[in-house]
């Protein structure tokens, strides 16, 4: 047929006009579909960005951490173990690490106390994370009180509030000097929480870890890439909640598709008949249906994905916040760095636009192939 671009344009115009004719029905369809894609894309964007950011931020995490277990549970580690480990070839240094949790009954929040190896606050002072500052409305030079392990109250002056730029790692941190922490926590003098190792050759991590386990059977070494890999699973499709969301979306889509596939209305069939009678070929009719499918699903896809992007990166995933909070009273703002995966965008496209277009064309196949003279009867 001549002028096939023009021909497609005509068919497209006609299709759009037809869609606008049944505004309410098509509007509802579009809205629901956009919503499904929005939720799906939000989850995908969030997960991807979070995982990406985690990878970046945990680049310098300790090379090997050695924990000690007692009756299956994590326990403090004697400093003498460090001497044994230092002897292992390839280990360049072993340092004790002191950190722990503190539950604040007043604000029902959990804090993490860490003793930094450099630039620790002077005795009597602490640095607090931005999340704590928000929850306790505490700022520099304020005094915060905690009850120690033996019930003794301890007061600390806040030296500094850690910038909220790093809240994804520091929101709930309290940095304290070693002496203060030992007095506060009751950790025995010759023990630490775990040991941090520096290794000369990164390729040796696994070998050294094996040696440590053989040497000290009640320890558990954790190596850097294991720590990093932990965050690959955050918000991935295997996590329970995400699976539920995806299943719900798939179900909704299936309902849609079924509704479309169960056939055309009499009105639609009549229209196709008329088009064929006035000279439209079967392929013209099918193209019309194709454009109809594309118009709806492409619009839904573009709108849904764009909204998802705005949702995750401009509003810090505000709709997911209740989900991410759980029962915690202290939580970071999920201000993630914008990052997208083209693989995800493409996969979403293929999973949403393509099936929809197919379910729009297929039921019309039979109607499109009728003999035009059937209309004359």
């Amino acid at each position: 047929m001549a002028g096939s671009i023009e021909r497609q344009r005509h068919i497209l115009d006609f299709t759009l006009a037809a869609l606008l004719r049944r505004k309410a029905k098509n509007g509802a369809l579009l809205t629901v579909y956009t919503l499904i894609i929005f939720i799906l894309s939000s989850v995908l964007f969030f997960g991807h960005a979070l995982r990406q950011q985690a990878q970046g931020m945990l680049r310098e995490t300790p090379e090997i951490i050695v924990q000690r277990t007692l009756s299956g549970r994590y326990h403090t580690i004697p400093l003498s173990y460090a001497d044994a480990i230092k002897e292992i070839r390839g280990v360049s240094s072993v340092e004790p690490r002191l950190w722990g949790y503190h539950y604040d009954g007043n604000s029902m929040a959990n804090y993490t106390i860490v003793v930094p190896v450099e630039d620790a606050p002077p005795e009597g002072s602490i640095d607090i994370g931005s999340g704590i500052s928000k929850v306790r409305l505490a700022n520099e030079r304020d005094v915060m009180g905690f009850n120690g392990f033996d019930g003794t109250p301890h007061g600390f002056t806040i030296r500094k509030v850690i910038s909220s730029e790093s809240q994804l790692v520091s929101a709930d941190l309290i940095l304290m000097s070693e002496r203060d922490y030992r007095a506060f926590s009751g950790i025995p003098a010759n023990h630490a929480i775990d040991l941090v190792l520096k290794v000369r050759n990164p390729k040796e991590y696994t070998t050294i870890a094996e040696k440590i386990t053989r040497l000290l059977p009640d320890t558990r070494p954790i190596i850097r890439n294991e720590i990093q890999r932990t965050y690959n699973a955050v918000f991935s499709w295997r996590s329970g909640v995400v699976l539920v969301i995806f299943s719900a979306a798939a179900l909704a889509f299936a309902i849609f598709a079924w509704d479309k596939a169960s056939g055309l209305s009499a009105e639609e069939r009549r229209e196709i008949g008329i088009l064929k009678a006035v000279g439209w070929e079967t392929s013209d009719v099918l193209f019309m249906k194709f454009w109809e499918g594309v118009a709806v699903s492409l619009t839904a896809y573009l709108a849904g994905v764009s909204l998802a992007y705005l949702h995750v990166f401009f509003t810090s995933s505000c709709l997911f916040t209740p989900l991410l909070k759980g029962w915690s009273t202290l939580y970071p703002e999920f201000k993630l760095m914008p990052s997208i995966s083209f693989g995800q965008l493409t996969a979403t496209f293929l999973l949403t636009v393509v099936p929809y277009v197919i379910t729009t064309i297929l039921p019309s196949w039979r109607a499109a192939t009728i003999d035009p003279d059937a209309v004359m009867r």
Partner: protein
Amino acid sequence: MSLLLLLAGLVAHSFSQRSASLETVTRIAGMVGRLQLTDLCLFTEASYTRHLAMTDLSTPFQDSPFSFEHFPTGALVAPPPHLGRSNGRLN
């Protein structure tokens, strides 16, 4: 159509933010190194949701591995892969 432009614009936005983001992430990575941190502060509900990489085998599975999750955000993260190695013994 305008939606296509919008999406293209957002994609461009994400690319433009890259260098600024990288700087921030590098700064934070430095802090992680200095303080010897191992986990992101995402879910502060419980010890095993706060320190995913450090948790031991029994804490998340307090009653049994098949019991329901105690804390809501526990459902968001799968247990770390190294947890499967019971108490550090490597295969």
